């Protein structure tokens, strides 16, 4: 379980990093290394070049301004977990972070790295879709902003990023209303068999808006059919049940050794109910 030989670079600036990405074939960015390093050890990944961005000090930040939480590419997941800014402005992100692996993993792992890896069983892609987050992708040709939904949708263990692009920042609009998060994992800290994240806003007449995303299939998915069942409803148990049923049928469930597709759909139903009940209760307190 030793990686194949690779060239190693430790740039100190984003410019240098993207320069290396553009000048080297088959280069990979190393941030927390919690997915990439095991894959290299198994020789499932054999990048010719590693661009280690941990030495770029100005990427390690979490800040909240103008209603947006900005998270730099090397900010650790454990920092998100402990951040007052995240707790105040994006409590769904804070709550979901506690479900990511184990503490030792979160001490190294990064949010941007998890998004770039896009494991469909990981929490972040779905959570950030529910939050309407976006990423800044930089290459030597410039930078662009793309939504997390565009970044990950339809991809499996890959993203819409080009080979010469890296994520420098994740931007999360400050959350309004209530949120809910529920997942089912075989053991504490495991990748979930299925999970659901939701953000709900209420007004005087009922549910004003809803954002629901689920994970645990081949691709994380925003569940707009469930959202539309809920929006305009009173947010009561019938509406929640209807939304959950639609979530289960819309979710692209698949079989694997931890669960059948049918089972995953049943879990999405149960978990959507839990997440929506939590979100609606939270929204009603606002």
């Amino acid at each position, binding site marked *: 379980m030793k990686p194949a030989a690779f060239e190693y670079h430790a740039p100190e600036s984003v410019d240098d990093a993207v320069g290396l990405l553009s000048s080297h074939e088959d280069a990979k960015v190393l941030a927390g290394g919690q997915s990439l390093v095991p894959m290299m050890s198994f020789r499932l990944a054999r990048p010719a070049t590693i661009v280690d961005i941990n030495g770029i000090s100005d990427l390690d930040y979490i800040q909240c301004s103008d209603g947006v939480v900005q998270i730099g590419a090397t900010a650790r997941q454990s920092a998100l977990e402990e951040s007052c800014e995240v707790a105040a402005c994006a409590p769904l992100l804070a709550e979901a972070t506690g479900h990511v692996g184990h503490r030792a993993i979160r001490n190294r792992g990064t949010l941007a790295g998890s998004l770039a890896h896009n494991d469909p069983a990981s929490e972040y892609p779905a959570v950030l879709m529910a939050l309407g987050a976006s990423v800044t992708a930089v290459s030597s040709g410039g930078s662009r902003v793309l939504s997390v939904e565009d970044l990950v949708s339809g991809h499996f263990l890959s993203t819409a990023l080009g080979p010469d692009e890296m994520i420098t920042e994740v931007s999360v609009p400050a959350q309004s209303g209530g949120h809910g998060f529920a997942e089912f994992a*075989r053991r504490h800290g*495991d*990748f979930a*068999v299925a999970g659901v994240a939701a953000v709900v806003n209420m007004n005087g007449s009922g549910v004003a808006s809803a954002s629901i995303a689920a994970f645990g299939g081949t691709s994380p998915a925003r569940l707009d059919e469930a959202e539309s069942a809920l929006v305009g409803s009173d947010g009561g148990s019938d509406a929640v049940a209807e939304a959950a049923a639609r979530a289960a049928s819309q979710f692209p469930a698949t079989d694997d*050794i*931890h*669960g*059948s597709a049918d*089972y995953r759909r049943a879990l999405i139903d149960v978990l959507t109910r839990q997440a929506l009940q939590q979100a609606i209760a939270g929204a009603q307190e606002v």
Partner: protein
Amino acid sequence: MTTTEWIGARAPRREDPALIRGRGRYVADINLPGTLHMAILRSPMGHASINSIDASEARAMDGVHMVITPDDIPDHVTQFPVIWRLPGQKDSGTPALAEGKVRYVGEPVAAVVAESRYVAEDALDAIDVDYEPLDAVTDAEAALEEGAPVINEDWGDNVAIHHVFAGYNALGECHYDAETFDNAEVTVRGRLKIGRHSGIPLETRGIVADWDEVHGRLTVHSESQVASLFRTELAASLGLPETAVRVLTPNMGGGFGNKWDRYPEDLLVSIASMELGKPVKWIGDRREGLMATVHGRAQVQEWEMALQSDGTILGLRGKVINDLGAHLHSVGIGPAWVTGAAAPNQYKIANYYCDVIAAATNKAPSSTFRGFGGPEGIFGAERMMDKAAKQLGMDPAEIRRKNMIQPDQFPWFNAAGAVYDSGNFPECLEKALEAADYDRLRAEQAELREQGIFRGIGISSYIHVSGFGPSPILGYLSYYTGGYEGSTVKVDPNGKATVYTGMIPMGQGTETTLAQVAAHHLGIDMDDVRVVWGDTDQTPYTGFGSAGSRSNVAAVAVIRAIEEIKAKAIRIGAGMLEADADDLEYAEGAVSVKGAEEMRSVTLAQVAQQAYWAHALPEGDQPFLEATYVYDPPNFTTASGCHVVVLDVDTKTGKITFQNYVIVDDCGPVINPLLVEGQIHGGVAQALGGALLEEFVYDEEGQLLTTSFMDYLLPSFTDVPDMEIHHVVTPSPHTDGGFKGMGEAGTFPPGAAVANAVTDALSHLGVEADELPITPSRLWGLIQEATG
């Protein structure tokens, strides 16, 4: 602690200070000057012919010292044999490398020795193997069908053995009567499955071989649980005299049986070291550990139980199909045989019959695993007891009470040939029920169900025939090794003792246990006893060494050696005290005159000094104060007990939540309660893994899908409930001290207890949890089937 009553004391483990502080020394820590590193090229296919292997590119790589393909193995090197060879069992062994074809994913195909593991793994990539895929068979029942791909051509089919337990007990009586099953008032049938899983030691397998060309000696640093037998077999397979091989065993990070077996890598590193004249090291990584260390347990069982309508069992018969994997490994079909022998369990079942069939499949070989077939037999027995109770409308506790062997019925000759020496099965059951508050649980159950809480109570009683075993009986069973343990005890001139044992500690506290027994019987402080293990040049030969249930045998060897030392001490003391030896006794670390008003005694240290000075030894006595005793037990010991588990099932997700776990264990007198509890905790945790989480999953082509801990799920501490442990003590009548084996017993009942509890929780739906592991997805599927 100031005591000489060491037996029964909660003495802290003397192994811990080093291990906990990272001062242990494992095979991976052994770095001899000039060591080369081996990596193994393993089959990526479940079943394929090997047309050719081209290693020329790898051989030419910088840093590569040797590539071993089948053509590079010296002609005199032979396969490791199967040592349990039941009559009618097919012949196969464990080769160093696949011979002409691969039979499972992970089977060694070639090996590279290089200056580093990195280079060695790079060179693996450069070896070109031309495989021709063959149809694979991964289901044991399908492997038995006409026309199934034959995995070992020389067998003619995939049947490794068809062994019949025809109902004979050890007295030669047979009470099997097929008609009973046709005519019984009640017959109950069950089809059960146990998933393929295994013991997963924290430390993977590894080995360092160091050939000394000058002295013609091979020193092997190994993780073998049975160093003596390993030495014998390694020497034989390499064509070396046994005196040329020394096996050293450092600390071991768990064995669980799979390190009892001999493996291809043991031959490969030895061949390489002898060829290159340098130390060669192979440390298995976790992926190799999961795909190429023996698996266990996988069985399909079909049972039929005949009963009277009052719940009295009239007979049990069945079929056990063992998913053997690609070939017979070190112990052959031993575990499946034990399943057939254990299935009558604690019950008065004379009318018994069991077909045991082992089927080759394109999977890793299945072999030794803690419990060794016993847990599978208990799973069958205890699921059938609950099925019978349900069909009869009886309480599961009541049907057990009704059929249990009673305390006055020992020795009990079970209908599969085992002899139970002692026990009090009803007391274990009643104590467990009382501790779990069984009657209250039953009363609450209906009420909780109305609230949507589906609580189940599962009982599993068990026997564990332990302390293998009298050597003549092993011979009768065609098990080609002895069942004894030897111990040498030496008292030095200062009166401190050293115990030499052939047992290999794997983490269960063997060193502490033997020191306790020796200190107790010598009447000295435990700190004054050193235990030496792990060097075949120094320690007594042991033929068996599955140490988890062997402390009782080794402890007796220590006790008997000390009896000889004490007798000699009295003879020497007689001269020192100018008394007649018959008037002396040995107690509390001194030889004293019996009943003397004035204390007249000499200490062990004083006696020892005389023994070494040898100025005035009794006639016929040699200098030194030491003795060796090799103890071959007259019978197995029968440990027993009962587990009661209480759990809730979430019918929407299939999730199981433990509410209580009660254990009553009877391993005879307890040498060290702390260690016994630790062994029980560990055994139960391991069995709960097999009951709920752990499974090696292969696809139809024989591809292993669970090659990391992301997919092969071990229980972590959040998955294991708190356990409440109680003891019943019935000493074994035939061992000194009455000790029984206990290191494996924790693995016996949890599978059935959990399955019974899940079935009980869902009795209103008619769900039967008959397949382990009971994963959430699988249980949810059963609930869906039941509710339509």
